[in-house]
């Protein structure tokens, strides 16, 4: 029996994670949300809790919900969960467990001209999104009841539009009647992310994802990480050419951009790169 390649195993884990995160598939046709106790917990990846199929809460949505709740300005619960997941896996969550990451990888398989990011500094935009839209705006701009809008979810998140907006508007005529300019904006943004992901690998992960920004900060110390054997490396550059996140795994094995997909390790001609749990 042929053993599965690393990439096939990773794809299998991605599909399993997608299925587990969105196990309430029967709700899609009815436009109902799962209301059970699993929604107290967060999925590790970006997955809208208004998706009818979603079993768990979205960590970014939950962070904004608690931050904008009035009595709290910041969520210790969600930050703590993200620290625990992040210190264990770092951005391996993006590479293995995030449903929206899987969606982007599938989009990138569509035939089209392929490009790298036109401007490398765009990768810092996701930190601006995190600080402004996820942390500051929900806490600062509140209504008369002291409640703030989840600004990232409201103005940016394409996962919410794709997984929540489209299925719910298809099954709820009253929501379709209420849809206006904001929905139009979000659909245009979703379209831009879809086109971006077809052309540029992992476009949303690179440029806009606040969850990737958080996990990336913990890449330097995560338990699961990249190890490069300097004695074996011949600096051929094969790993850099292959990297979907446009980094050099050899020079920056702990880069905040690395999603631990392992493509570099699989193709290294000298087997100098390994994905490891222990140093």
């Amino acid at each position: 029996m042929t053993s599965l390649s690393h990439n096939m195993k990773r794809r299998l884990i991605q599909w399993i994670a997608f299925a587990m995160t969105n196990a309430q598939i029967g709700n899609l046709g009815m436009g109902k949300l799962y209301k059970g106790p699993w929604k107290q917990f967060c999925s590790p990846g970006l997955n809208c809790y208004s998706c009818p199929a979603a079993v768990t809460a979205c960590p970014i949505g939950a962070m904004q919900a608690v931050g904008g709740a009035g009595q709290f300005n910041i969520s210790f619960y969600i930050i703590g969960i993200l620290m625990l997941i992040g210190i264990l896996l770092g951005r391996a969550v993006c590479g293995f467990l995030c449903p929206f990451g899987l969606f982007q990888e599938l989009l990138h398989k569509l035939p089209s001209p392929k490009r790298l990011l036109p401007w490398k500094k765009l990768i810092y935009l996701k930190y601006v999104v995190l600080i402004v839209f996820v942390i500051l705006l929900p806490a600062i701009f509140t209504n008369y009841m002291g409640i703030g809008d989840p600004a990232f979810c409201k103005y940016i998140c394409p996962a919410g539009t794709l997984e929540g907006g489209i299925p719910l508007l298809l099954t709820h005529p009253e929501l379709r009647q209420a849809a206006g300019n904001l929905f139009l904006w979000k659909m245009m943004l979703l379209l831009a992310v879809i086109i971006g992901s077809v052309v540029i690998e992992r476009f949303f992960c690179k440029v806009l994802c606040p969850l990737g920004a958080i996990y990336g900060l913990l890449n330097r110390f995560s338990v699961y990480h990249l190890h490069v054997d300097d004695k074996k490396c011949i600096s051929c550059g094969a790993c850099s050419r292959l990297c979907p996140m446009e980094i050099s795994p050899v020079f920056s094995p702990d880069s905040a951009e690395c999603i631990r997909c392992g493509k570099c390790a699989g193709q290294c001609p000298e087997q100098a790169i390994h994905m490891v749990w222990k140093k």
Partner: protein
Amino acid sequence: MSRRRGIQILIGLAGAFLVVMGIERGEVPVVLHKAVNICLECIGIG
């Protein structure tokens, strides 16, 4: 113990502490309430 391992343990403990603190101050019902109801902002209705 290596520096990396030490930082991992520190961040892990800090994360666990924050989770407990968040539960203690009542954040979980807020998360649950938001997650089980249709988030009009998330789906573009506002």
